[in-house]
Every structure is written in structure tokens, then in C-alpha cells.
């Protein structure tokens, strides 16, 4: 077995369920998350010099986020062009997930996140969807916690603007607000 294979198997055992959860949250479809898991590891196994990557999990997470948002973008295009009926549900037997998916607002939020730039998107997903601390995100992205807060703040502002109501919780339109969590 090659070193690359060994490392990927270790990644799968250690972080497979975490990556699957991330993909499910970003696609809201269990079946698609399963397919993207497969695509993710195929992509990783085809990556040149993978063994030189510093943190394989961080690399895999970034690739997973990119795959999930690529899928969302393709789906959006397909829905606007396709004659096909498109299944919307992630799971037939997973009621709580189905309820979340049925929320149109949830899809709009994900679409808005998908339009964020690379590092903003990654930081925002890690903070708000994976619920990691600013310190942990900063360490993984090679930034300071303050920089990560700024990225997340700007990303949230983008979401407020994109989703049509740029009013902060304090009621002041566009009021700057630094996160203290």
C-alpha cells in the first residue's frame, strides 16, 4: 500500500464522519453528500504530492467545501435550465433533516455563502456551520483570531446585504458590529 493510500485511510478513519457531516450541511442532501465523499477522496488520491501537504484534514475540508459549493452552483444552473424533476430531499427517513431542508431561507443562506470569496467562505463555514472557535480557525488558516473575526464579520455583512435586509439586530441599518463570542 502506498504512503498516500495509508494517509487517506487514516484521514477517513479519523475525520470521515466529520467530513460527511460537513458535506451534508452544505448540500442538505445525504445522498449527494455520500457521492461527494467519494469524489473528495478520489480527488485527494489523484492529487500530486499529497504527502507533502502539511495538514491533510484542512486540505480535505477545503476541498470538501469547494466540492459542495460547486455542486450547489451546478444545481442552481441545472434547475434554471433543466426539464427534469429534481428531488429536493436529503433523506426519506430523517425527519429533522427534511424539515431543515424544506426551509427556503436555508437554501438562500447557503447560496449566499457560496458567493463568498475563498478564505471568507472557509472561515465562515468553519465558524458558523462547523462551530469552531476563532482561535482554532485562525490556527488552521494561518491567520490571527482577529483576522478571522474580521473575515467572518465581513461575510455576515455580505449575507445581510445579499439576503435583502441589511439591518443589524440593534436595528441600525448597516451598523458595524464586531463579534464577541
Amino acid at each position, binding site marked *: 500500500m502506498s504512503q498516500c*493510500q495509508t494517509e*487517506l*485511510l487514516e484521514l*477517513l478513519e479519523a475525520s*470521515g*464522519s466529520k467530513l*460527511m*457531516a460537513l458535506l*451534508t*450541511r452544505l448540500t*442538505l442532501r*445525504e*445522498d449527494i*453528500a*455520500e*457521492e461527494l*465523499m*467519494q*469524489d473528495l*477522496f*478520489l480527488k485527494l*488520491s*489523484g492529487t500530486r504530492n499529497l504527502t507533502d501537504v502539511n495538514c491533510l484534514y484542512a486540505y480535505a475540508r477545503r476541498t470538501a467545501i469547494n466540492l459542495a459549493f460547486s455542486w*450547489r452552483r*451546478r444545481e*442552481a*444552473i*441545472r*434547475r*434554471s*435550465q*433543466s*426539464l*427534469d*424533476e429534481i428531488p429536493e430531499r436529503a*433523506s426519506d*427517513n*430523517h425527519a429533522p*433533516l427534511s424539515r431543515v431542508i424544506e*426551509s*427556503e*431561507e*436555508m*437554501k*438562500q*443562506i*447557503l*447560496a*449566499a455563502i457560496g458567493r463568498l470569496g475563498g478564505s471568507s467562505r472557509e472561515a465562515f463555514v468553519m465558524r*458558523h*456551520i462547523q*462551530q469552531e472557535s476563532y482561535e482554532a480557525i485562525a490556527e488552521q488558516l494561518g491567520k490571527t483570531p482577529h483576522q478571522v473575526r474580521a473575515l467572518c464579520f465581513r461575510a*455576515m455583512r455580505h449575507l*445581510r446585504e445579499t*439576503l*435583502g*435586509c441589511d*439591518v*443589524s*439586530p440593534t436595528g441600525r441599518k448597516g451598523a458595524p458590529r464586531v463579534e464577541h463570542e
Partner: protein
Amino acid sequence: MFRRRAERGPRVSNMNEAEIRRRLEQLAQVEPSAEATQRATDRVRQTLLQPDARSNARLASLWRTIMKSPLTKLATAAVIAVGAAIGIALMGSTPAFADVVQSLLSVKTASFKMAMRVEGVPPQKFDCLYAEPIRMRQTSEDGSAVVISDFEQAKIVTLIPAQKQAVEVKLENMPQNDLSQYNMFSEIRKRLQEAQATADESVEYLGERQIDGVQTIGYHVLTPGVEITLWADSRTNLPVEMEHAAGPATYTMTDFVFDIEIEESLLSQEIPADYTVRTMQVDASEPREDDLVTMFRLWAEHMDGSFPSAFERQVLMEFIQAQTKKMSENGQEPSEEAMMQLQPVIAQLNRGGMFAMQLPADSDWHYAGQDVTFGDAEAVVFWYRPAGSATYRVIYGDLHVEDVSPADLPQ
């Protein structure tokens, strides 16, 4: 039928930040089921541990990408059809199951359902009508596309009713002595007929099985890369179910009704006057070495001077995927016009591939072009030994071809 609401871009939803945060909290609580996680990790583990599984999974992954888009699906339709025919052509000789064969050969017309399944992709289902000598109508289950082929007329017409579009493919230089290879149903009939004459261990009798209340007898034919399973009514010897599997793609034919009346209009290739028609010419002659050289040239021209990463069926899909990506701008699908322009290239690539696939086993062909740069007159891309020849034909990186003795071949 149309769904156009979701994710089409920014829209006013009046969500304030508190609402956005509440939704994000909900999203963070989403967990896949334990079964789905187990399934996903098991599949990945299997893929990583088994090279064959990895190759099939990669192919399935490409299929998923291609089949998601109506346009790339259209572009690959011809490839799929020809690929299936090649698969059947690879079956080789099979032993006698004469009664089944004779019954099938006596059929003049038939209707049946055909499902194409690729791992991870929703099945593509078609309603099919077949009529002798070699005419076929395939209608996609949702009615979005109809393909009518008549190989005596050397023509395939694809109709897309919702868009009032038609694609007319004219097959040029078709060999007139054997047309059956161009239609899956005809090809199976021919192969079964051939199977009567020979004995071969590649056919296995599967015993008996009930299918929808019908007692059937089964045969399994195994050849390199292709498996065919046939279940025939034990009373009439007519097929009840036929399955053709190659790599991750499986075609299953069921619900056969034989010798039915078929309205002539259903097999007519006349295109309604209000349709927009695109016409394509495809060379259907026996592929030659020139086609292989042209294939390498076209590949290099379209793929930035490189040659295929491997010489196997899936690289054609990699090519289509790469070209589709190249043509996509700002995340938009490539235009229909661009996809149509790509079709002759795909057809030519396919011909080159067919030439190599049809080489006999003792031709000793090798592909070594994966690391060669287009234009390199020293580097060898491909070599094979023509039937009866003492020397090999060698294709180099600048695509000149030389006759080379076995002792001078690359190690």
C-alpha cells in the same frame, strides 16, 4: 414540472442578522444518519483499497458530472451508443443455446424498456421500439428526448420536443454487409446466433428463476470488460430480461413484447417543420490507423499539447469534462453551439479508440503517451503489430509513424 425558484440568485427575503444566525444554528445541528455515514465511509474505504474499484469510482464520478447536464448528456449520447455496441462486439463467441437464439431471431418487431444505470446517477430509462431490418425508436421516460435510428438509411434523428430542436446524424461510409453492430438489440441477436456454432466456457447456465410470474432460464456471458445476462421464458424461449454491464454502466432491457404492430409514423425520421435542425456527419467506416493518429492529434490540440493520461474508455469522458469546463464561463453551462461543435471531435476520438479496441489480442499494442509532449519526434506514444506483420507500427510524439522491429521497441 419546471422548478426555477431555488438558488437563482439574490432575492429579497427580509432576513435580519438574528434570523440568519438562527438558521445557521439550525444548519450546524444537521447530522447525516449513521447509516449514510457508514455507507459513505465503507464506499471510500473500498475505493481506496481496491485499484479496480478506484478506477470504476472515478469513471462513475465522471459519469455523474456528465449526466447532470442536459447538454453534456446530449454530447455523450453518440459515445454511449457506440460504446455499448463496442462492448457487445467484445463478447466473442458463446456456446449454443439454440432454442433461445432461434426464438429471438424469429422476432420481427419488439417493444421493451431499457434502463441505463450508472453508480450514483439516477437511472436513465427509455421506452424502445424495434423493427426489422434495423430500426429503433428510443423515448426517454419523461418524453424529453426521442431518438429514431434507421441504419439502412444511415441516419439517426434525435428530437427534443420541449425545445423544438432536432439533431440529425448522417452516418457516412457505413459498411453495408453487417449493420447489426449499430443497434444493441440487433447485435445481441447476432451474437446469440453466432454462439450456436461454437462451444465456449465463457457462457454459464444460471438455472431457472421466476420473473413476474414467468418461469425463465438464464445464461451469463462473461468477456473482458463486458458481462451479459439473459433470462428467457422457458416455455417460449423468448427473452424476458437482458442485461449488459460494462464498468459502472449497466443496461437492462425488460418488459418485452414481441411481434407487435408498430405505427410507421413512430419510426419515421421526418423532422417536424417547426423544429430547429442541426446536422452532423459521422464517419461510420471501419476505423484505420489514420484515425488513431488523428485522435492523438485532436487530443493534443484540445488538451494543451498533452496526450491521454491512459488508454481506456474513461479518458474520453475526461476529455469531454475538460472541454466542458474550458467552455464554461462564469460558472455558466457551455452554449449548445459550442457543444455541437465538439461532437465531431468526440466522434473522431471515438474512432481512434475503436481502432485500438478492435486490434486482435496478439497485436501486442501498448500505449506510452501519458508523459509525452506533442511534437516530440523521439518519444513513443503507441505501438502495435498489424496482423501477419513481423514488425511493429510505432506512433511518435510528433505523430509520424514508423515500422520498427521487435528488438528496437521501447522497453
